[in-house]
């Protein structure tokens, strides 16, 4: 069967009423959390993991993917109207978008962001559908050592290639890897680091860690900044519609943003932020109105927003075809697959094509829903921004603890939630990135399994890791991704990397 047939079959799955409903819930929730500062798609998916445990796998995965896409749309609204990016991947949008809103052009800024996201999401999802089968074929020749090398590459790019310190990125990653050791060893059944505590035998719950790090850590950090006064929300003045000139200036940046964002998301290169920065730089160089950049140029909103959504779709390529998450949200979605006993990868395309293609097709549908949700209903989302902080964060903690209690109503679990929450707060205070901890916890056991399988085949000979050309190349790239930024920072050129920090929440 060709990709088209698979995609059509997937559309049939996605068009089932229940799955449409899940997609709608997902994109609505995703937009809401994207709009609200302080919570992001990674946290939301983590919160929903225990709640969706009893639901049907296809439905909940469709919902999770909808949250991911929705978060990317919603983040732009906050950036444009509040100048506080809702998501780290919307930082660039705030540069020009907020200026546009202050000049009374908030409507066209929101419109170009939403339509750009739609165009990019559509093209990138189709790209995902056509590239995935090719990568699945490639992945079939991958053995344990190639997978291990790939995971090492993901570890490096998530933790230390970007961000402002190699040391702190690696420390975060290894704290995650250390937490991943806790519990029963999957290959031998030996208990590690559980100290006879029965609650630790199953290891640290991904949900508990993610909720603590993202929700509680962030809440404590915001609260500790003291009362900074209410944020200023720019009212949407004038027409929401784009003029002919706006269209003419937007369509090329949309396409360029898509072309930049998709491959960056698809490579294990850590986060959507990088694509948005590159797209902004490209638009700034190519524009016919350089004087407007810095004062609200529409290209500076259109390009990065498209890049942002295209890389969200791109992230699903390694996640679905290789089981390799490259962002915190993707890592938690992987945990979502695992809770149903599914392991994304080449095998899943063969054993469960209905689910995979249903998921991909539902993203196309979700994109249409998001366009409707984000253009005519924009006023509703803007109102979310006016919730006073005390009630907003009190509500966030209510739902954050609800997820953990729902999964396991034990005092021990809540104690861990509190401990990791305080840890997340301290890490923010000292400038440690959060995403590597979560990625380390989820990907750590998988990497260990592959490593030990590879070494078991070679009977303990470590050189086997570099004697396969694919693995050797991947490890070499990983080494470069570790060393080059280190040299750049030592020479005082680290500023740029700091701005690209993959601090996705």
């Amino acid at each position, binding site marked *: 069967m060709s990709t088209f047939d698979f995609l059509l079959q997937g559309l049939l799955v996605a068009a089932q009423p229940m799955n449409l409903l899940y997609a709608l819930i997902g994109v609505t929730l995703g937009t809401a959390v994207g709009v609200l500062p302080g919570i992001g798609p990674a946290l939301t998916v983590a919160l929903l993991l225990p*709640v969706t445990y009893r639901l049907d796998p296809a439905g909940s995965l469709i919902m999770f993917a909808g949250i991911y896409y929705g978060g990317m749309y919603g983040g732009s609204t906050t950036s444009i109207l509040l100048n506080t990016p809702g998501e780290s991947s919307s930082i660039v949008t705030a540069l020009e978008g907020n200026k546009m809103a202050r000049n009374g052009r908030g409507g066209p800024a929101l419109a170009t962001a939403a339509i750009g996201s739609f165009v990019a999401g559509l093209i990138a999802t189709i790209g995902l559908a056509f590239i995935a089968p090719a990568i699945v074929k490639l992945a079939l020749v991958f053995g344990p050592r190639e997978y291990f090398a790939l995971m090492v590459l993901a570890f490096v790019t998530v933790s230390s290639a970007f961000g402002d310190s190699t040391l702190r990125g690696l420390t975060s990653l290894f704290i995650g890897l250390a937490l991943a050791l806790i519990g029963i060893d999957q290959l031998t059944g030996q208990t590690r680091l559980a100290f006879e505590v029965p609650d630790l035998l199953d290891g640290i719950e991904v949900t508990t860690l993610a909720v603590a790090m993202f929700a509680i850590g962030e809440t404590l950090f915001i*609260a500790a900044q003291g009362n900074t006064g209410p944020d200023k929300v720019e009212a949407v003045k004038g027409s929401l519609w784009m003029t002919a000139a706006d269209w003419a200036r937007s369509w090329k940046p949309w396409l360029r943003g898509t072309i930049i964002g998709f491959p960056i998301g698809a490579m294990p290169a850590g986060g959507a932020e990088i694509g948005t920065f590159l797209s902004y730089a490209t638009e700034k160089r190519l524009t016919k109105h350089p004087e407007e950049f810095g004062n609200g140029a529409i290209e500076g909103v259109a390009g990065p927003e498209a890049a942002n959504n295209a890389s969200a779709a791109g992230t699903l390529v390694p996640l679905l075809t290789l089981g390799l998450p490259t962002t915190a949200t993707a890592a938690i979605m992987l945990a979502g697959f695992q809770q149903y006993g599914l392991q994304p990868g080449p095998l899943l395309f063969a054993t469960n094509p209905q689910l995979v293609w249903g998921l991909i097709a539902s993203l196309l549908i979700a994109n249409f829903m998001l366009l409707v949700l984000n253009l005519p209903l924009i006023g509703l989302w803007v109102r979310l921004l006016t919730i006073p902080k*005390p009630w907003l964060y009190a509500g966030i903690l209510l739902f954050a603890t609800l997820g953990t209690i729902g999964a396991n109503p034990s005092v021990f679990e809540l104690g861990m939630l509190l401990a990791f929450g305080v840890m997340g707060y301290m890490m923010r205070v000292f400038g440690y990135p959060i995403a590597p901890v979560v990625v380390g916890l989820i990907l750590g056991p998988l990497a260990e399994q592959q490593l030990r399988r590879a070494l078991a085949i070679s009977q303990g000979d470590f050189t086997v890791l570099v004697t396969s050309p694919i693995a050797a190349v991947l490890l070499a790239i990983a080494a470069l991704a570790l060393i080059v930024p280190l040299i750049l920072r030592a020479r005082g050129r680290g500023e740029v990397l700091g701005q690209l920090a993959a601090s996705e929440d």
Partner: protein
Amino acid sequence: MSLDHPNKVEQRRPDWAALVIAAVLVAIAAVIYLDASRLREVTGYSPVGPATVPGAVAVVLLGLAIWTVIAAFRGDFPERERQEVGPVVWIVGGLAAQMLLLNTAGFSIATGVLFAATAAGFGRRKLWISLPLGIVLCLVVWLIFAGLLQLSLPAGPLEQLFL
């Protein structure tokens, strides 16, 4: 999520907080290493086993601790913004209260306390408003999630009224 960049490095005294972080890393490395040596004894000699990766993680953590000490003496850590202690105490206290109250007072009262404490941390100190508000809100949440979605949330005296 903050947009600020680390301030320029300047010469100052060793960063004591960073030294504490290094000490914590050493402690974690030591615990992992001890556990790994226990495992090596249990599983006997084999080149690759359950102790291989923990051993490696412990060694890297030790290396990172040394690197942190060097960074602390060179003043490489970004300057920290002043943190308000009060709000943190309110919220941590709220979470601790929820943890201790959960199985006796039930979901709504325990989480209502957390709700009010968090709002207090953000400056809404009128507990006689926020506490009842939080408890009622949590009861509604309990009715939806425990009643309709069959999530097992602990029931206390308040929830018993609806069972």
